[in-house]
């Protein structure tokens, strides 16, 4: 297991390097370097350009140096926790993000837990009671969840949360806690606001998960060993938990690899509608104003989150399934 973990962590490194290269290319894609855009913008607004500052930035990002060196500067910065410099806010990205990385992480984790907690029982139920009214109803709701754009669901839920529960609109906490140090009251307020984004982001993932678990479990339930077990008098519930469920659950766990990018994506869109203080909203703002360093750092953060999630799912699979652990290859 230890050897497998080490090996798996090492295969992560080339992936991360490749991702960082792609992100860097995206940062560079807009024509002209960002500094000249920035200067042009300042001049267009009739503001004076602080030459000293520009020289400082130019030097810090090595804009006069060849591309690969710029890339190295950027990556070393990232590794040291320096996310770059936001031209829009005129602050280092580190200071702009504040709690955002943490909150993004919290939302993603809670959403994943929500997805598993909801889809597991429903998936098992719909498979065991195939073609029952419950199966049809739940499958139909699942399909609707899959097909509704989640930003719109967010709007509607937000409206109802406000009308029914009186939750304040937008944000992840009541206005009085914004920019306050963390306290229990703040945590409570966050929890009160958290459910809307979690439900909204989780819906499509949950729907997909239910369908997959249902299909997997149905495949197993139709196999002969199940009939044999039943014929030998094994109680159905015990049989279900002991054999088909354990086989069907593998893809369910490994699916976190699919789920996590989906959750991170969904969170980005939903955060705009719900005005969540997470990375997604800022990423989109940064992209709109072509503040590419800020955007690149966020993109890198989100991708890293995904890669780590996949690592965790592989490790969980390895714990569950000795075949994977021993062969050293995760089937995905």
């Amino acid at each position, binding site marked *: 297991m230890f050897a497998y973990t080490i090996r798996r962590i090492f295969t992560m490194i*080339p*992936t991360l390097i*490749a*991702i960082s290269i*792609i992100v860097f290319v*995206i940062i560079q*894609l*807009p*024509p002209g370097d960002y500094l000249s855009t920035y200067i042009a913008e300042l001049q267009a607004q009739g503001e004076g350009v602080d030459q000293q500052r520009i020289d400082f930035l130019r030097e810090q990002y090595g804009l006069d140096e060849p591309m690969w060196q710029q890339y190295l500067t950027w990556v070393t910065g990232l590794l040291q926790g320096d996310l770059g410099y936001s031209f829009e806010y005129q602050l280092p990205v580190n200071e702009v993000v504040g709690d955002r990385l943490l909150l993004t992480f919290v939302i993603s984790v809670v959403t994943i837990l929500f997805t598993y907690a909801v889809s597991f029982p429903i998936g098992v139920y719909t498979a065991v009671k195939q073609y029952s009214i419950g199966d049809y109803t739940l499958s139909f709701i699942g*399909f*609707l969840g*899959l*097909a*509704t*754009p989640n*930003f*719109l669901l967010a*709007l*509607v839920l*937000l*409206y109802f949360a*406000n009308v029914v529960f009186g939750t304040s*609109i*937008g944000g992840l906490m009541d206005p009085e806690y914004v920019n306050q140090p963390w306290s229990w009251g703040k945590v409570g307020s966050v929890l009160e606001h958290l459910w809307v984004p979690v439900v909204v982001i989780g819906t499509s993932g949950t729907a997909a998960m239910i369908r997959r678990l249902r299909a997997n479990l149905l495949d197993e339930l139709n196999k002969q060993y199940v009939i044999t077990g039943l014929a030998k008098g094994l109680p159905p519930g015990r049989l279900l938990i002991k054999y088909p469920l354990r086989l069907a659950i593998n893809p369910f766990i490994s699916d976190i*690899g699919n789920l*996590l*990018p*989906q959750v*991170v*994506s*969904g969170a*980005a*869109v939903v955060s*705009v*509608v719900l005005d969540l203080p997470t990375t*997604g909203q800022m*990423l*989109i703002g940064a*992209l*709109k104003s*072509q503040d590419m360093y800020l*955007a690149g750092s*966020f*993109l890198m953060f*989100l*991708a890293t989150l*995904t*890669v780590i999630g*996949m690592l965790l799912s592989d490790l969980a699979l390895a714990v569950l399934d000795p075949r994977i652990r021993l062969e050293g290859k995760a089937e995905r």
Partner: protein
Amino acid sequence: MSSSDQSQSMGGPPRGRIPHTVDDQPFDPGGDEVLTPEQERLYMASQWRMMWLKFRRHKLAVISGALLLALYLSILVSEVLAPYNLHSRFTDHIYAPPQSVHLFHEGEFVGPFVYGYEKKLNMETLEREYTSNPDDVQPLRFFCSGDSYRFWDLFQADFHLVCPAEGGTLFLLGTDRLGRDMLSRIIYGARISLTIGLLGIAISFLLGISIGGAAGYYGGWVDSTAQRSIEIVRSFPEIPLWLALSAVLPVTWSPIWVYFGITVILGLLDWPGLARAVRSKLLSLREEDFAVAAQLMGARPRRIIFRHLLPSFASHLIASATLSIPTMILGETALSFLGLGLRPPITSWGVLLSEAQNINVVALYPWLMLPVVPVIVVVLAFNFLGDGLRDAADPYR
């Protein structure tokens, strides 16, 4: 189907004693194997015909397929179907609520008509309040001339399927903040929203088949390179990457180029799933005898892949492509909603939905959210169709 029918026609296990009978017909050893013409048709059916027969039994999939076909046909004649033009503005009717169609006026049959609006400005909230005026009967006109348009930019015409009464209005789904008819805009929006998925899937198909095909057929380093790149593309969260790529589309591009740019972006990031499926299928198929035979006869890899291997799982590919079109439609909707996708004057359902961005809309003008209905319907239809196709394509079901 046939086997179950047959066993049923023979009846269940006999009850009681079977009477002893001797058939006076001469014994014909091949007799059991003579097929009725109906069976013969079924057993000799080609693979595609079998799929069609199986597909036809999947009611929901057939309905979805028909619906999608109708929708796609409708985009050929959007101009005729829409009561107004895409950009017709009615400044007197801003944020007008939907009008409903009635048949009877004061107990008398008039045919389809709508009641006219009565507008007043609420001086306290400064909202425009519309009520329908029960005396103002505006019968609809059918096959009529209304707003003039250039049909596919080819020739001038003003023929519409349905128009408002002379001097009347027909806003079946209400109007937006510039007083444009939502129904017409949704009908025009279908043109963009429906095609973007098709173009995107074409690109993703091409990439997926070539990369997955090469990986599966050659194996070795080609395979591991492809596998690695698939892994890398897949570990990006989709929407942020879409957003980033579409944000770098030059602002100087004309809307139509942006449209193509977005399709390419959607397609470029969708291929890994398909490539993976192609690869694993090819890996198992190339070991089959017919593939080895072709190889021994000196066929080139390209011929073997496209002529011998691909047809074996083409059906499967079509099904999985159908299932990934909705992702693209939803992706475009999200991009445009966030203002990083298509830009007006190009109108897609996502662009329309971007008007419904804040909570006031839900409270005051809920009809601005209506473009979500076609999105949901199309996405569901593609899902059902894809499910049906997948079941039909699977020979072991």
